[in-house]
């Protein structure tokens, strides 16, 4: 008698089943491996190596720039894993008919999507652990346990927000070829004006205001609190989380309206 299938054992088992294969697929994808893992580590080493001993202010506290770059690059890695990764992979899966084929099975569509979002969160957790370990060992950027808990909360909210944005944007992309340029165009400028590459204190008023409109700045600012505060309450920023959530909900609503399981050529 074979073991009951995941679908027969309930939604949670089926979800875990989907997450497992989605994580496996991401880990085996060379593009995802580079942009999600290698690229942020590279940038962290470069930025901290070049500027790490300079000083900046985070939430009024004067710290070395390495304390700014570790959470800042973590923010970037979350955006790359969730938003960039999903835009490219969803567009590819849709245009190659894989989404349509999955949708043809009895698996609930919401579960297929949740599986991918959760796989993203898992990958973010792994990536955060790597970046924080490097920060601690190489650059002495330590965090109190309560601050780490706050950072974890912000990371998960951020990962989900950017996963929603990934679904939303993938819905308006016609071909996988245009996914990569769109990802670059929508993220690259934000690294500079959202406190990821350059502290926002160094920016002019207009650029700072523009940066504050977009979600990347709120993710970076939220994560950076954990590098300078020791308690959960002071290391978490409710206003930044709300801003992220607002973007996430708007993106989810847009995705629900615009998302398609069928290749775009089929609607012609």
């Amino acid at each position, binding site marked *: 008698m074979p073991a009951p299938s*995941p679908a027969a054992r309930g939604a949670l088992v089926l979800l875990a089943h989907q997450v497992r294969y989605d994580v496996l697929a991401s880990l*085996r994808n060379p593009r995802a491996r580079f942009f999600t893992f290698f690229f942020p580590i590279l940038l962290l080493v470069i930025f901290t190596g070049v500027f790490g001993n300079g000083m900046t202010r985070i939430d009024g506290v004067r710290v070395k720039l390495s304390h700014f770059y570790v959470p800042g690059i973590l923010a970037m890695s979350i955006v790359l894993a969730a938003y960039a990764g999903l835009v490219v*992979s969803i567009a590819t899966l849709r245009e*190659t*008919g894989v989404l*349509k*084929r999955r949708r043809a*099975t009895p698996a609930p569509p919401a579960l297929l999507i949740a599986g991918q979002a959760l796989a993203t969160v898992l990958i973010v957790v792994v990536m955060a652990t790597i970046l924080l370990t490097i920060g601690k060992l190489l650059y002495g950027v330590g965090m109190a346990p309560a601050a780490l808990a706050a950072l974890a909360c912000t990371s998960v909210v951020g990962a989900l927000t950017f996963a929603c944005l990934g679904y939303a944007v993938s819905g308006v992309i016609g071909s996988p070829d245009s996914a990569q340029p769109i990802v670059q165009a929508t993220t690259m400028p934000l690294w500079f004006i959202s406190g990821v590459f350059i502290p926002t204190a160094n920016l002019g008023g207009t650029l700072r205001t523009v940066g504050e409109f977009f979600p990347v700045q709120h993710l970076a600012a939220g994560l950076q609190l954990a590098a300078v505060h020791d308690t959960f309450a002071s290391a978490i920023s409710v206003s930044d989380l709300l801003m992220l959530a607002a973007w996430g909900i708007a993106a989810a609503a847009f995705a629900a309206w615009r998302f398609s399981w*069928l290749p775009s050529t089929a609607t*012609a």
Partner: protein
Amino acid sequence: MKRGAAARSLLAMLTNSLDAAVAQRNGAPSEDTNLTRRDAPPGEPVIVIEALRKRYGDREAVRGIDLEVRGGEIFAFLGPNGAGKTTTVEILEGFRRASAGRVEVLGVDPWRAPSAWRERIGIVLQESEAEPGLTVRECVELYAGYYRAPRDVEQTLALVALGDQQQVRASALSGGQRRRLDVALALIGDPELIFLDEPTTGFDPSARRAAWEVIAGLRALGKTVFLTTHYMEEAERLADRIAVIVAGEIVAQGTPQTLGDRQLTRTRITFVPPRGTCVADLPAVLAEHGELDVGGQIVLSSARVADDLHALTGWALERGLDLEDLEVRHPTLEDVYLSLTAENQSLPMTNNNLRS
């Protein structure tokens, strides 16, 4: 060479495990092979389409079609590109909503079907690539997890002759192998009804033959198969019944033998007239239904082939004449299809960019 062996192992498996089931369904011990067309009466209706219409904006891709597919049959749905084939299939699969008319698949409107309905259907899409990053076995295991009572993974891979490729990345398979993986993914839930959308497009002849054996094997499993194809030979080999759609309308329905009144069509006997002869020189029984075609050949449309040939060759022998390029030809399914589509191509829809 792998494919031949693959198809044989598939056949062996099917024959061994399913003879009993086939025999039971046919109501008699089954002597014939699984690949021959069944003579048993057709089963219950599995797909019912009445007055189906589908509009995209102001273009009507499907313009009121009626179809019925019964349990256990292989039904071939033919038509040129842009005729409404894929639109119809996507409505049957629950991916698109009908603009008007009634559609029932396994007793349910596919657009409103619950997920349990999807347990009972399998779909092989026209264009779909492998799951990225996963091996052949992992792909099948992933899909097996979606169904409450999936088939055995190992056995299903053997069924499509991918038993030896289990650890290979699915993206590294050849075109024919990938298509067989698609069939495995469609079969893993043990469906009653399988949609195959142009399953052999782009195959070389030997891969096509191997795929046909797999599809014919589905019949032996008791599955109902809804097949769309461009290839007349494919429909002729596999299908119990055929419908032809042109410009959103069904222009003919029947068995491969009767489609477009093929069985009533006369056989053509053609030959180059021996030097110095013309139609009028032929025996009267032949001359009255013979004519000279533009290529200079005499064409006899014959209702009684043996009699007419006898008269013709007797006449030639008597005069010591040779019958150059003598050819006896009943219209092929392809001839019927081409004339059906040509007759109906003048309808307005065909120049649009609608997908088939």
